[in-house]
């Protein structure tokens, strides 16, 4: 049911996007097919990251109910135990839709698909999944201190995914800065797409910018990992 609901919502988004392109010829120089490709790419990454971190998103509940205690008395990584605490299939709807859009985009855009491009796309999708999983982990980290006001982070998880579905250069430069150098979503969706779609970089970053995706994820995950370790040491547990 939830899968179906998600599908309707996302499908409606695509209709909106399509109508938009009936009014305007392009979006910052990107055709409908190219934007669809970017949508698909971002959706696949987001849903994969969401799936990976599905259990991690239950950490606030584990903490509130005092069940995080039992995770800490076992000889296995607390992160992995949190990860497998809950496994859900709700992301497969979004993932399927993302893959569909990605395929439509790939077939309809006017760029040639080479083996290196395809190989790098696999790397980029994996890195993107890692980045979104790390973003969801930030929520979990904050819940060690404040159990109820972590929704602000959703602006970066869901917001990051939404933003990643559009060409970055159409946004205000402040936003661009945040989503490149603080939360490197832009390096996972937009920049690799410039390479996949053979488009020039209107923002003027160095030529290797499309290829920093795995490194950006690596760095981001490193910082988040530190945050997680710090949070565990400040775990307060609950009474009794």
């Amino acid at each position, binding site marked *: 049911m939830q899968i179906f609901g998600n599908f309707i919502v996302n499908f409606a988004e695509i209709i909106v996007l399509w109508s938009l392109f009936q009014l305007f010829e392009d979006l910052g120089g990107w055709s409908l097919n190219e934007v669809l490709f970017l949508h698909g790419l971002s959706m696949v990454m987001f849903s994969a990251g969401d799936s990976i971190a599905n259990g991690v998103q239950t950490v606030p509940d584990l903490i509130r109910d005092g069940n995080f*205690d039992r995770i800490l*008395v076992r000889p296995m990584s607390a992160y992995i135990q949190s990860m497998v605490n809950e496994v859900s299939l709700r992301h497969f709807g979004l993932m399927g839709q993302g893959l569909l859009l990605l395929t439509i985009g790939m077939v309809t855009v006017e760029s040639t698909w080479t083996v290196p491009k395809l190989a790098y796309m696999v790397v980029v999708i994996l890195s993107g999944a890692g980045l979104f999983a790390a973003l969801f982990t930030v929520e979990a980290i904050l819940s060690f201190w404040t159990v109820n006001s972590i929704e602000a982070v959703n602006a970066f998880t869901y917001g990051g995914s939404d933003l990643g579905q559009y060409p970055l250069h159409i946004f205000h430069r402040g936003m661009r800065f945040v989503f490149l150098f603080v939360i490197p979503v832009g390096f996972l969706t937009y920049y690799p797409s410039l390479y996949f779609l053979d488009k020039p970089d209107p923002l003027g970053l160095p030529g290797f910018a499309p290829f920093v995706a795995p490194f950006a994820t690596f760095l981001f995950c490193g910082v988040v990992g530190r945050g997680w370790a710090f949070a565990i040491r400040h*775990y*307060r547990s609950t009474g*009794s």
Partner: protein
Amino acid sequence: MLGAMRGLVDRGGTEVTAVDEVSFDIPAGEIVGYIGPNGAGKSTTIKMLTGILVPTSGEVSVTGYVPWEQRRQLAQQIGVVFGQRTQLWWDLPLIESLELLRFMYKVPAARFKQRFAMATELLHLEPFLHTPVRQLSLGQRMRGDLAAALLHEPPILYLDEPTIGLDLVAKTRIREFLADLNRSSGVTILLTTHDLADIERLCKRIIVIDHGRIIHDGDLARLRAQFTATRHLTIDFDSTPDPIAQGDRNDLRIVSQDGPRVKVAFDRSIHSAPQVLAIMGGYGTVRDMTIEEPAIEEVISQLYAGSKPTGTGA
């Protein structure tokens, strides 16, 4: 060897000192009762000993590990049972929870088989091995939790109120199991409880904590002696003796006189029980006598009453 804690301080949610200058050593193989009223800091101490909580200051060493620094290594050395909260997976049958733990603790298959068979037999798990944990009775669940905590043969077992909410039969069964375990495998046990019968059955040594501070650490007998100087001696005479007037003796107190049965209270620092018996022999022929130990509940409540709330508040 188990826990050497020096000057532990833990901060709770609002900078309340939960545990202050709690310091003790537990040699391997001992069973220690750790008791105190609600909110005294018992669970906080156990959580620091397992590495769940990081103390603000102080030292803890458990089998050579600093719990919060080497939490995962230590986890192999300890078994934990929280009476109020299961370590098992709510939706899984008991046997699958045990399988999962086998995987987590990397227990070799052959070893697991052996441990599993032993636990099943000693804790009588057979009838509900395939029942989801949420459907187990509290007593069954607790036995399941004990099996889970002991699967990886930890030399140390922490039990936080292991008999809470259980009926008398289930309590007794768990106590017997723990006593056997300690005797046969030398497992060191640190036990918190509100049921002092647990303590009496299992522990020679008790540590009493209140307001985050240790107010007693020593054996149960000494604690009793220290806090209750008064003993009761009940004497059955052959025939009803002449009424004993209280005025006769000011070193004894006649508590009651009911036919041939007379109950006297005496101060142990003045008289020994045989002396009292000799005195009472002057009133008639003694047929039988019993000495009543003061109830442990009484001892503990006197202990709590005597401790001052220091070290709380920020």
